């Protein structure tokens, strides 16, 4: 919920997260405010945060999702070589995008 306040302070927001299923090396897409909710406030989709940003603070920043494909998600495991490669490509894309 507090992230809505954070979103409201910027014109452009990029949410970066790991992607469990989907295209490698990463997915970059614009997201729109939506009443898109899951079971719990512990897992509020970025679309819902954008919706709250609009409804609570009257702000409508451009919000993008940068989802980096990962492969192993067990406790204590480091990055797999493929995930590390995806991360490097995503980081390069990110730097290029914000510059």
């Amino acid at each position, binding site marked *: *919920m507090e992230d809505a*306040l954070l979103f409201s302070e910027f014109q452009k927001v990029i949410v970066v997260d790991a992607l469990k299923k989907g295209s490698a090396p990463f997915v970059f897409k614009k997201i729109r405010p939506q*009443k898109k909710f899951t*079971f*719990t*406030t512990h897992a509020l989709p970025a679309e*819902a945060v954008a919706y*709250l940003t609009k*409804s*609570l603070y009257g702000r409508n920043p451009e919000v993008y999702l940068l989802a980096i494909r990962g492969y192993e998600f067990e406790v204590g495991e480091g990055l797999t070589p493929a995930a590390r490669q995806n991360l490097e490509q995503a980081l390069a894309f990110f730097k290029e995008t914000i510059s």
Partner: protein
Amino acid sequence: MARKITIEPVTRVEGHGKVTIHLDDQGRVAQARFHVVEFRGFERFVQGRPYWEIPVLVQRLCGICPVSHHLAGAKAMDVIVGVGPGKLTPTAEKMRRLMHYGQMLQSHALHFFHLASPDLLFGFDADPKVRNIIGVAKTHKDIAVKGVLLRKFGQEIIKATAGKKIHGTGAIPGGINKSLTPEERDYFLKSPAPFNVDTMIEWAQEAVQLFKKIHRENREVIDNFAHFPSNHLSLVRKDGALDFYHGVLRAVDAEGRKILNDVDYQDYLEYIGEEVRTYSYMKFPYLKKLGKEKGWYRVGPIARLNTCDFIPSPRAQKEFEEYKAYTGGKPNNMTLHSHWARLIEMLHAAEVIKDLLNDPDILGDKLVKKGRKKHEGVGLIEAPRGTLFHHYRINEDDQVTMANLIVSTTNNNQAYNEAVRLVAETFIAGKPEITEGLLNRVEVAIRAYDPCLSCATHALGQMPLEVELYNAEGQLIDRKRK
């Protein structure tokens, strides 16, 4: 035909639990049980770890109140390093208090504004599409905005004292690893409104007024919902004041008579027993003096305001006097009044945060003390949801050999069962069927005690509940999902 109704939240969220209601041949409630599958592996896998890792390890128990586990573990380790209660440096003691009262502020704000307020503002039977925080944001924007900022303020206090908002490292055995800089202090004291402590105190006070307004308009519902007598247990300061960080153990019965009279919690095993029942992974703590049947108790906001004699901050004390007057000075046993108690505590937390920020000791540089090592230590703290027990033993190689944790949810175990039973008796007797009203109220009863389980049962737009109806032979005859 006797029937069993199972209300089973999905298992993908933390605080997994389900409710089973057993009906007799006449369709009356024969038994209601609340089951929680809490992951207690921590007691085992911290064994063998060096004791100084405990404050950091144990906070992984919870994403909502890691600070409470962090500090309870640190308090136990203080005893082990020979710097037990009252022996920390003033800077260390006050920084820990600041961290903990920040935690109380953020957690209570989260619980009331994000989880409980939709039920109270829209009514228990309102459409789930509206009865959620998004609904509050749309129709009561001012309340939602204040809730967000109150929580953020508490989170920023935690970050300043523990290093991170979640899973920080501020407390170490025998002290802390940082104090505040004048700039950090002034950020909370002197930032332009609304992000300063004076505004937070005002908003916390407004939240208490909001509950009282809702109560005035819905007195009968709020007072009678899951209203049952019980014992109550918490820490209190030695002079009887409300204290979230440290004190002695006190328990009172439903009439206010003292059962535990301000005892040292290092000796908690003399007073508290834990019963195992076949149908739940969660133990049932009880006061040994009263035995397993009569010795169960409640913890948390409602218990704390029943055990303490006064609140040591002026605005919260004034609200406390009004709260106590409502029950003629007797303990309050009304489940939904826990929200009232919680908001008074939130106001107190905000007031204490201001006092601590104005105390020059929080800028001090004497952070850690050492003493004579012991091999056993107990740390207790009043977590947002209630009394939290951490007990450890170590060996000559400084490795943990035993850990016993009694978390707030466990302490409230029987209280959940009682609340669910009362709800079931009211809404199911004579109607052997699963109704929306029943489901809504089971959820409301659970939520009054525990925000983690609230997350498990409080959907945003959709109720994560599954209800199954069994006949006496155990055959599934009906299933409903929400």
